[in-house]
């Protein structure tokens, strides 16, 4: 049994990873909510967000803007816009037109689109095959509480991730667009009878979900100090698993699912011999067991909290 501090340390790291997973998972769950589809290129949209953020930061640095307080917010805005628009385009081209046909078609179309996004970054980004170093813009250093090291950088990542989630929650619960999203998720036809513009609502949902993936992408770059064109594959699978654990369609479930997945990964790394090599295997095994026991996810269908 590893010492308690190590477990706590790993749990803390897990929460941080979990925040990123949760941001990806919320997109999956929102898309499923409004269109009943699984958008498999979402992981690559997450990767695209990281590259859009990196390009913005490099561009800003080239014109002499390196101060993190200015550069980072701009990078977030630019990356959100890029992924938001690509997400809406993806929805219009290969998700919505197929929403009424077999789910297999959507699966095929979105998987292919993911491939196109990945290959585009590989080909068009300079030396796209190599991992790209991501600038360290967050404050370094940290402090210790009861043997657990807390880094300022990690606190910042946590803070940004939580702020993004709170923002989405407010949008969904308090705005007219959010009401439209909830209404469409619950009954698209009744929503239209209330005056909801279905197409615009679906667009907004994909913009929102894809923008969140961009936030996750940049946070991932800041955390690992590098990004790679294939990062969307694992990111997508984990984000989707997190959404499934939480119960597809349920925003709060997706957040819980993301956190759970992150903590599972890091604590299994600490608890199991050579665990860090197997952390994904262990985490996915737990997810599968979990889904066998509770196929509808933690909060499931009974939950009234589904969007």
């Amino acid at each position, binding site marked *: 049994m590893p010492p308690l501090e190590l477990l706590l340390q790993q749990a803390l790291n897990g929460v941080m990873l979990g925040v990123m997973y949760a941001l990806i998972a919320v997109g999956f769950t929102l898309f499923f909510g409004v269109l009943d589809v699984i958008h498999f290129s979402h992981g690559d949209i997450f990767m695209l967000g990281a590259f859009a953020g990196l390009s913005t930061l490099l561009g800003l640095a080239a014109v002499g803007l390196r101060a993190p307080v200015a550069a980072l917010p701009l990078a977030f805005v630019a990356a959100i816009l890029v992924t938001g628009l690509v997400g809406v385009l993806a929805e219009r081209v290969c998700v919505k037109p197929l929403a009424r046909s077999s789910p297999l078609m959507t699966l095929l179309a979105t998987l292919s689109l993911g491939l196109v996004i990945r290959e585009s970054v590989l080909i068009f980004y300079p030396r796209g095959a190599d991992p790209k170093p991501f600038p360290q813009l967050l404050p370094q250093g940290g402090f210790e509480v009861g043997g657990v090291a807390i880094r300022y950088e990690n606190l910042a990542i946590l803070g940004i991730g939580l702020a993004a989630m709170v923002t989405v929650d407010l949008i969904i619960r308090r705005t*007219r667009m959010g*009401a*439209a999203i*909830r*209404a469409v998720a*619950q*009954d698209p*036809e*009744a*929503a*239209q*009878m*209330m*005056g*909801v*513009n*279905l197409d615009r609502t679906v667009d907004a949902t994909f913009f929102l979900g894809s923008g969140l993936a961009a936030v996750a992408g940049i946070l991932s770059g800041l955390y690992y100090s590098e990004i790679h064109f294939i990062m969307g594959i694992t990111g997508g699978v984990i984000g989707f698993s997190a959404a499934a654990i939480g119960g597809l369609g349920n925003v709060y479930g997706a957040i819980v699912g993301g956190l759970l997945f992150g903590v599972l990964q890091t604590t299994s790394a600490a608890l199991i011999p050579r665990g860090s090599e197997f952390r994904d295997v262990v985490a996915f095994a737990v997810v599968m067991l979990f889904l066998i026991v509770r196929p509808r996810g933690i909060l499931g269908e009974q939950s*009234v*909290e*589904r*969007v």
Partner: protein
Amino acid sequence: MLELRGVSTRYGPITMLRSVSLSLAEGRIACLLGPNGAGKTTLIRTILGIVKPVEGEILFEGRRIDRLRTHEIVALGIGVVPEGRRVFPRMTVEENLRMGAFVEWAPADLAARRDRVFSLFPRLAERRRQKAATMSGGEQAMLAVGRALMGRPKLLLLDEPSLGLAPVLVEQLFTMAQAINRSGTTVFLVEQNARKTLEIAHHGFLLQKGEIAGSGSAAELAASPIVRHAYLRA
């Protein structure tokens, strides 16, 4: 107020409405009677643009609406209580009512509108924070009517609102429809319960197999052989 001219609607190869023409008088209660599967709901869905007519014209206050999209049509001032009520199950009573005012979203008199609905249906006030899914059929019916009223519609479409309700509630609902009409809203009531409906309606139409099989004042309809035979069992 609302006029259909030679409207035909198809579901795939099957013609569901065949050259339907009808006209609703402003400020009145009109009814649409017809047996199961006659196409009543299809007619409502066609008016709302959920299905598009393959021929004919639909006019609301003199302007063509048959090419508009559903959200544009209802924004002209049409409130709907759809077949099966279709309240938003995971929204509370208050959130459902707010959806009824979605077009304007934040009108100055939002609170007053809600209070009016609550005074019409005190039951809804008691359950304002309850999720619609957990309410009884009767309460959901009230909620659906209240939600439709939140938009201050000029025309209210009701598709079998009494279905599955206890007789007392049906009575209440019909009284309510009359009250709503007296306050200036034109009402179009789709029903199978011909006797009750003809008591409150001013005029109406009879739909059979997708075609208008009769129309006239409530008294004329009540006296017509088809209605007497098929609906009033007299």
